[in-house]
């Protein structure tokens, strides 16, 4: 029997299917529509699963939506309608969108697959985050689970515990609009980036500045009380702009062009100050969780947990014994949390731990594809390692499309673009020409776990996040000599370590040691504004668009043909 979790309508939609034994399949709708951040009902992901697992009413135990649809809509409405004059624009927008949202989840689902109503379950927003996070720790009763994001069902921060008998307690919650997530998104908007997409750019930018606006920011968000000063914001009244004139009076013009030096300096200082407020707030949230639960180990979920600079900065405060951020802490990972909820509802126990790659195997995705019509094989599977190592040494940039797919926004080696991190030209080429990233966004390194201490340092309390790029770490002098092009301006790197000896990247790194190459650059296999590649036609078109010559697949290395 299958359990299905679905997350949709607000952030990138996703579906997770499991039988609770050995079948796990996680999919995002954007894989199929190729629209990054697609939040529409995950119709195509479901159709893929229906076909692949012959799903029907009989073999589906339950389908669980990750939050309470009406509650989510209602909480914002009830908050705004108290001041109908002030919040006019948002209220009209909210009413107009009533019929496009999650309230019609069951209707949308029924168009794809007929399932009786008694098989439909609804979890709760932050509970789904918590239940997702619980799948990444061994002993759940050692941890306090903190969920922190923009808003979900009118809540913005929640602290849970799970005990050894699976009793879940909610210890504290903070309510809309007091949201550190919405605060950070507003700054993202002010600086000219897209909300829900540009936050990581603000994080990178913050390293270039100094927190000279700390005092001003503290007036805007109270880090001690975790409360927002709503006079600086408009997200609660205007769907078109998230900040008010009062914020402009402090920081000056919004949306300035960052290509101009003075603007860059100013905006990096604003970003740096916002990052400091985020760090302080989450620090206080963790202290609160410790005080309420008596637990010193933390699992942090929700979109805010994607801020790996914050994770790194907090590790130095010595306020926890361990901090875990699962690979997809945002709403899309909550589909897995929803499936966990559904599994618990039927079996009175939670799902087993899931790995870093619960997506489908690449071979299953492309069963019908005529590979040789689009790709020329340049090496057999048995020679792949040798040829790949040789190509890397010669300064080539390779794509990987192997094994199973990742869950989170970060490619962990199976669907990546890689090159020699020592090769300055290749790294520059990859960042500027192929990925078209901003100069202030550094590329991430990947290396064997055993080599980590030679080049990097990190506090023990966050080192488990290195497997999923969930944190930054510091560069040692040894790194600066040969690998300076992957070091961020603040001497940090978003490093990933590999421990799985069976993975291709592990073997490749091992092979490259002979050439004195210990670190590769690893970035997701997609072009700017696109989701990560999913099937072989995406691989082909992306290689052509980015001018990447080689791709490593399960059964060899290939070149894209001209068709």
């Amino acid at each position, binding site marked *: 029997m299958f359990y299905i979790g679905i997350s949709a309508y607000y952030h990138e939609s996703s579906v997770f299917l499991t039988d609770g034994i050995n079948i796990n399949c996680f999919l995002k709708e954007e894989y199929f529509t190729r629209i990054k951040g697609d939040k529409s009902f995950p119709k195509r992901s479901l159709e893929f699963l229906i076909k692949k697992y012959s799903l029907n009413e009989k073999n589906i135990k339950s389908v669980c939506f990750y939050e309470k649809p009406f509650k989510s809509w209602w909480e914002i409405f009830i908050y705004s309608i*108290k001041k109908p004059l002030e919040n006019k624009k948002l209220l009209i927008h909210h*009413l107009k969108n009533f019929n496009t949202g999650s309230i019609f989840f069951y209707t949308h689902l029924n168009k794809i697959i007929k399932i009786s109503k008694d098989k439909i379950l609804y979890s*709760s927003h932050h509970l789904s985050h918590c239940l997702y996070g619980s799948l990444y720790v061994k002993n759940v009763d050692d941890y306090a689970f903190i969920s922190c994001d923009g808003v979900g069902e009118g809540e913005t921060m929640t602290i849970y515990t799970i005990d050894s008998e699976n009793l879940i307690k909610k210890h504290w919650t903070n309510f809309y609009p007091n949201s550190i997530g919405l605060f950070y998104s507003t700054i993202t908007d002010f600086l000219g980036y897209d909300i829900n997409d540009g936050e990581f750019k603000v994080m990178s930018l913050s390293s270039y500045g100094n927190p000279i606006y700390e005092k001003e920011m503290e007036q805007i968000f109270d880090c001690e009380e975790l409360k927002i000063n709503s006079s600086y914001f408009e997200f609660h009244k205007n769907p078109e702009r998230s900040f008010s004139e009062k914020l402009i009076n402090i920081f000056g013009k919004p949306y300035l062009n960052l290509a101009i030096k003075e603007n860059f300096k100013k905006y990096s200082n604003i970003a740096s100050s916002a990052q400091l407020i985020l760090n302080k707030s989450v620090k206080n949230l963790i202290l609160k969780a410790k005080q309420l639960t008596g637990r010193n180990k933390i699992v942090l979920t929700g979109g805010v947990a994607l801020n790996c600079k914050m994770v790194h900065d907090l590790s130095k405060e010595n306020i926890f014994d361990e901090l875990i951020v699962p690979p997809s802490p945002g709403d899309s990972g909550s589909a897995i949390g929803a499936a966990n909820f559904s599994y618990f509802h039927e079996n009175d126990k939670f799902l087993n731990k899931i790995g870093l790659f619960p997506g489908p195997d690449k071979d299953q995705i492309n069963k019908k594809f005529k590979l040789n019509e689009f790709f020329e094989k340049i090496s057999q599977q048995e020679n792949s390692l040798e040829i790949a190592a040789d190509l890397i040494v010669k300064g080539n940039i390779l794509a990987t499309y192997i094994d199973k797919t990742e869950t989170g926004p970060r490619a962990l080696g199976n669907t990546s673009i890689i090159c020699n991190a020592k090769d300055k030209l290749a790294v520059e080429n990859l960042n500027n020409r192929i990925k078209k990233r901003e100069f202030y966004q550094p590329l991430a390194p990947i290396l064997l776990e055993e080599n980590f201490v030679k080049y990097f340092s990190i506090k023990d309390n966050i080192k488990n996040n290195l497997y999923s790029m969930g944190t930054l770490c510091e560069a040692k002098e040894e790194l600066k000599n040969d690998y300076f092009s992957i070091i961020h301006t603040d001497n940090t790197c978003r490093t990933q370590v590999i421990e799985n000896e069976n993975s291709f990247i592990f073997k490749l790194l091992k092979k490259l040691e002979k050439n004195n190459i210990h670190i590769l650059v690893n970035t997701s296999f997609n072009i700017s504004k696109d989701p990560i590649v999913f099937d072989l036609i995406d691989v082909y078109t992306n290689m052509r668009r980015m001018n990447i010559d080689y791709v490593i697949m399960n059964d060899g290395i290939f070149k894209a043909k001209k068709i």
Partner: protein
Amino acid sequence: MFLIPKNKLNKFEPLRCCFVLNEFSAAEFASALEMLFAAKNVDDLKLSKGFIRHSLDEYKHFSIFTNIKNQISLEHELNNRETRFIPIHLFAKGYIYKDKFIFEKKNIKDFAIFIGANEEIAEKKLNDFLENIRSFKPDHAKKIDKILLDEERHAKYSLAFAKKNNSKFDYFIKFSKENLLSKLRHLYANSLTKVSKIFNPVLYLLILIMSLPVKFLDLEKSEADNDVMENINPRSIL
């Protein structure tokens, strides 16, 4: 939808120009996605390859429009938020249907007519735009000229395929229908603002009425819960 200036401009308006370029970028990107979807779902390998080539062209056009827009933005120090391309907005702007790609709605013969007819419409709009910017930005106009050639080729191929696979009468009817539908889509998109002007006050009146009883609602929120799984109703949406 396309807000292309209809009359000849006497002076160059960079913001408006960037706005139009952004619309063209969005249209090209959406077209690339439609072609990619068709390539993945058509059974004929030759056609699949054709759709991929078309898709790659559209992605290339998207990049050209975006680069021109970025250059003009930088040159004129524009506030570029409104001219930013955000893929998810393709739905709201009507470039991609929320529920289905065109290829899912039409058979291959009708799909070809749809492409051909719409490529021709895009070509006309692009020509109008070129007329407006050629004297102000000749270098950029040259790049757009190349896009026009591609669009002509796409329209030619698609319509040739459609003619081959439809009777003359069917072709004429379907082609006219696509042109009419396209005009209606533009009309609908352009009248949304006007429709809002009528409906928004009605909605607001409704909101004001609803706000009265809400004042008397005293909804308590609980900060904590000692047994979350016991107290949650898994069947409730509230």
